[in-house]
């Protein structure tokens, strides 16, 4: 039962970290390596609003999500748009932005800015306390993570099937040229995708960070997790990302409960290699398949 419950929780954590990345890639074919940095930025911004400006926690979250969305949109409009279509440049530029954000957060004495260093930055849990489920103790924050994950998945499904912009997203994801011929503005969709993807990174941050603390280093971890999930799931496929999240979540949880926790990462990377050997484009990916057809 422990494995089942914590397996689901850890899977949803992976999923939350990866959803924004896969959405952006699916719509715009841009690998946003600043994804983890936006995640971290959300945490520190929210912390700053709550602790330095004494704003209400939920108001702080909303303001932060708006800011991070705008930042994501700006990222595309002023930077990534210029290099779109040049895969290496896309990676270098977006990773450079990630470094600027993550390392910038740790700079000290830039004017009166002291930098976010140390372990004293944490967001409060939405609801404190624990509950016992079939004899397994789980805190409410982890249950909230599951709920938020479920809402996002359902929301994404509805959005991409019943909303105009969502349908345009799907069109872009399926065939950008055909979508453009039908009047869908590719740049505009990419801007919106970056905004939504960044907001999703932000939602992940504000739901996951209350489990522990906010650190700049976690940005690299989140980027790694998102990349691993998306590659195994199939770049750009959010159904694939969800499936890969659950594979990773259950594999690492089972490794910790039944085997030795130190081998969690080994199992994780072995799984990645295994999946890519069997399906080079990932579980739901079509990249390799399309290339071979050409």
């Amino acid at each position, binding site marked *: 039962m422990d494995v089942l419950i914590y397996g689901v929780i850890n899977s949803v954590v992976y999923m939350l970290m990866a959803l924004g990345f896969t959405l952006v890639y699916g719509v715009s074919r841009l690998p946003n390596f600043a994804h983890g940095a936006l995640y971290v930025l959300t945490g520190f911004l929210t912390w700053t609003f709550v602790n330095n400006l004494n704003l209400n926690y939920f108001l702080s979250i909303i303001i932060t999500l708006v800011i991070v969305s705008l930042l994501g949109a*700006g990222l595309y*409009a002023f930077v990534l748009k210029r290099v779109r279509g040049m895969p290496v440049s896309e990676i270098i530029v977006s990773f450079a932005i990630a470094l600027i954000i993550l*390392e910038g957060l740790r700079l*000290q004495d830039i004017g009166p800015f*002291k930098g976010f*260093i*140390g372990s004293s930055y944490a967001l409060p849990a939405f609801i404190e306390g624990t509950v016992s489920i079939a004899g397994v103790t789980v805190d409410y924050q982890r249950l909230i993570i599951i709920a938020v994950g479920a809402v996002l998945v359902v929301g994404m499904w509805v959005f991409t099937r019943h909303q105009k912009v969502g349908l345009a997203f799907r069109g872009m994801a399926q065939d950008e040229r055909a979508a453009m011929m039908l009047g869908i503005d590719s740049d505009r969709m990419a801007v919106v995708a970056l905004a939504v993807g960044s907001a999703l990174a932000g939602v992940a941050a504000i739901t996951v960070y209350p489990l522990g603390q906010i650190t700049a280093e976690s940005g690299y971890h989140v980027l790694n997790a998102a990349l691993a999930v998306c590659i195994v799931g199939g770049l750009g496929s959010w159904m694939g990302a969800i499936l890969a999240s659950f594979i990773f979540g259950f594999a690492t949880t089972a490794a910790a409960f039944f085997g030795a926790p*130190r081998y969690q990462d080994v199992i994780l990377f072995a799984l990645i290699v295994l999946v890519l050997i069997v399906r080079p484009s990932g579980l739901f990916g079509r990249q390799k398949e399309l290339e071979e057809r050409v």
Partner: protein
Amino acid sequence: MKSRLSCDSYVKKAFLVLIVVSVALVGVFLTGCGSSNGGSADEDALVIGITVGRASIYGQNSEESAKLAAEEINAAGGVDIGGKKVPIKLEIVDTRDEEPGVPTSDVLLTVEKLLLEKQVDAVTGGPSMSECSMALLDLYAKYKVPNVVATGTWTPAWNKKVGEDPEKYMYSFRMSGHVGYWVKDAAALLDQIKEQYGFDKLYVSSSDAAHTQAAAGAIKDLAAENGWTVVGEETHPMGSSDYSALMRDVASSGAQVLFWWDCKPEVAIGIKQWYDMKVPAILMGFLNPLDEPTAWDDLDGKIVSTIQFNGEGGCLPGSEFTPLTSSFFDAFVAKFDKEPRGCGNVPTYTAMYVLKEAFEKAGTRDKEAVAKAIAEIEMVTAGGYLKFGDDHQAVYGTDPDATLVGQWLQWQDGKRVCIYPEAAATGEIQLPPWMQ
């Protein structure tokens, strides 16, 4: 054409929004922040290089303490070298040694640049990464610059290397302690718990890093020698985000103490899970988040009764084990509006006074004379009584009248209470509420 115009107009609007957001972000981050700069400019000033990884807490602790000491020394008239009073000027460099992806060679280059360009009279601070400090020993020997390692660098290999060739490394000293001392302290503290509560079952956990595993392994062996039964042990990957398996394992093992050595901030997740799952074992160890003076509020009080190694002694409120302990603590709080964390604070503060003393005693800036003067220094400090061994390592023990001491704290009612060593303790070990 229309679409193109519409796109341009959109870009312009978005550009404006981005500028507004950027300005707002800068404003937000600048709110409520403050900074200071130690030292002053003077042609004759005694130039002390401060080598710290500014993105790490060890570096930050060290830098702040150096600034505090420099300010105090300058306010008191400076350093008397051969009858002439000169101020201290700090040359602070960021060694970046605890940042991901920064190789040791970069750290060495930074320090070499400092030595060559700034003409420093002496160096203190870090780097805190052992491999960097080990490599720097040869650099300092080459340039013959007196230096005192004062934050991190806890490897016993450092003093072994110096001890094997004291002539070559005559300019290098270490004020911070090393794992050999801390492991003995941990074993003694476990015995204290055993005596007080009759516990004898131990679970040992560490992150998957060479130094944490080595330290945890040494503690396990010492505890076993002292009659503890090690009922479980585990190593987890760095940066884990779920420790439920560990906590379940500890609870089912019958352990009464969970000793945990982990140097990553993500371990806060595990500390909270220990509290939430009400694991019936005292949590003690070396866990970075517990070092923060604000940890009680940061972690919503879920650290009650946790026991943490606080590093070199002198950073806990209420400690007065030497006449200088509380004056350092109060001065630090007055200057920085926060309590000192622990590791690297007192050693760096002390190192500054040691250098002052050495230059005054030598009466010259001659580096060899200064190095010899450092070796002979014995003095009462905020962290105990200082003297260096033949291997240039400051001697640590449990009696602050005879040696420097390391301190262990327990979080009690939102406060950091010193529980070890006995001579410095301000409170007794308590059990977590659910174990009482």
